[in-house]
């Protein structure tokens, strides 16, 4: 399929471009054709494919778990309920392990983060050409199917988590307590500008690293899938080799997508735990 493009560079660029809807430079609204146009649309544009796939996957998650929750009985669980209970217990254990305070929000939050990120990452295992090719056939110019390779998606989640961290920091310690935690340690009080700088950077680094870690891993994984897919256009020997490589990378990627979902969840729990904890 790479042969449809003029160069491998164009192929890669196409596969890494979101379907962006926004206002064109001439004032009309529509989909951006190419990265330049998408950039020119500024902030008030939306990546339709990211939104569509992430919301769709989130709804699948909520639908499955809601079904299991409705039918949840104390009898012998079977099928879906078994799986859902297994996931819920796993999350519950993780939360109990890292979160030592009382907060009814944290466990459902962790479950949502884990399952949603996992499902979004799972889209990475779809062969990179299938859905974009189908979309092109249907007249849609771009289709990036892995929402977690869109920084907007990962930052959207990590910033939400960050606001929760700020909210609970202020709620648990009071504004003064939160400020003193930032300003009066680790060095003595008279060095508070240094403290503020250090702790401030540490605080800001939390959401940024959280989002970038997931984005970077998924983006790099996707990029490798795309590079492997390029081999399919280079004769049958390369194509067979590419097929083997794609299989191997996909198997390895199963580990990565689960691990990244787990890391995102664990760090979310840990950050919230730190927000609740009093420093002495």
């Amino acid at each position, binding site marked *: 399929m790479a042969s449809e493009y003029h160069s491998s560079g164009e192929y890669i660029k196409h596969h890494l471009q*979101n379907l*962006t809807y*926004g206002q064109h430079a001439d004032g009309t609204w529509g989909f951006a054709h190419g990265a330049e146009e*998408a*950039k020119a*649309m*500024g*902030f*008030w*544009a*939306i*990546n339709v494919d*990211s*939104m569509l796939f*992430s*919301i769709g996957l*989130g709804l699948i*998650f*909520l639908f499955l*778990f*809601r079904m*299991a*929750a*409705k039918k*949840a*009985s*104390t*009898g012998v669980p079977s099928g879906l309920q078994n799986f*859902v*209970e297994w996931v*819920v*217990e796993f999350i*519950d254990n993780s939360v109990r392990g890292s979160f030592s305070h009382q907060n*009814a*929000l944290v*466990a*459902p*939050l962790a*479950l*949502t983060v884990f399952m*949603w990120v996992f499902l979004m990452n799972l889209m990475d295992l779809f062969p990179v050409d299938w859905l974009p090719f189908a979309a092109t056939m249907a007249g849609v110019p771009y289709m990036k199917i892995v929402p977690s390779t*869109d*920084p*907007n*998606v990962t*930052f*959207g*989640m990590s*910033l*939400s988590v960050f606001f929760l961290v700020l909210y609970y920091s202020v709620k648990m310690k009071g504004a003064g307590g939160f400020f003193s935690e930032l300003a009066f340690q680790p060095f003595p009080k008279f060095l508070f500008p240094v403290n503020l700088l250090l702790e401030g950077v540490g605080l800001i680094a939390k959401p940024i690293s959280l989002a970038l870690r997931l984005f970077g891993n998924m983006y790099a994984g996707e990029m490798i899938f795309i590079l492997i897919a390029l081999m399919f256009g280079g004769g049958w020997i390369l194509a067979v080799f590419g097929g083997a490589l794609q299989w191997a990378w996909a198997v390895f990627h199963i580990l990565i997508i689960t691990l990244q979902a787990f890391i995102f969840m664990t760090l979310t729990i840990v950050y919230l735990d730190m927000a609740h904890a009093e420093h002495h």
Partner: protein
Amino acid sequence: MNFNATLIGQSITFIFFVWFCMKFVWPPIMNALETRKKQIADGLAAADRGKHELELAAKKAGDNLRDAKAQAAEVIAQAEKRAAQIIEEAKTAAKEEGDRQLAAAQANIEQEANRARESLREQVAALAVAGAEKILRREVDAQTHADLLGQLKAEL
């Protein structure tokens, strides 16, 4: 990497998903898990209790059996004792009866002997009187010598 309103859209979606999960997914599942955990714990406790009760019942049954055996042995011993007693009484009674009959028989024999001796004496007396009459036919008058004869009769 260009940021746009997708960021806001994602945040809103995320918050909605978390809210939904917190409201409608997590509590019922956790509830079911907790309830089942409790049921299993109760079931295990009941099983333990049942086992304990079984042990008690087995012990009680053993005790009862031992008591019953002891009672049966006692009853048998009493019965044997009673049987021995009855035999002893029967023996005694038989011996008494024998003695009594023996005594009666002896008394009877003695009576018979006495009677025979009496009649014999009378006959001897009669014979003696008859002999004396024959010898002293003339002199002896039954009337006059009646007291003499009577005396003789009593001596014989």
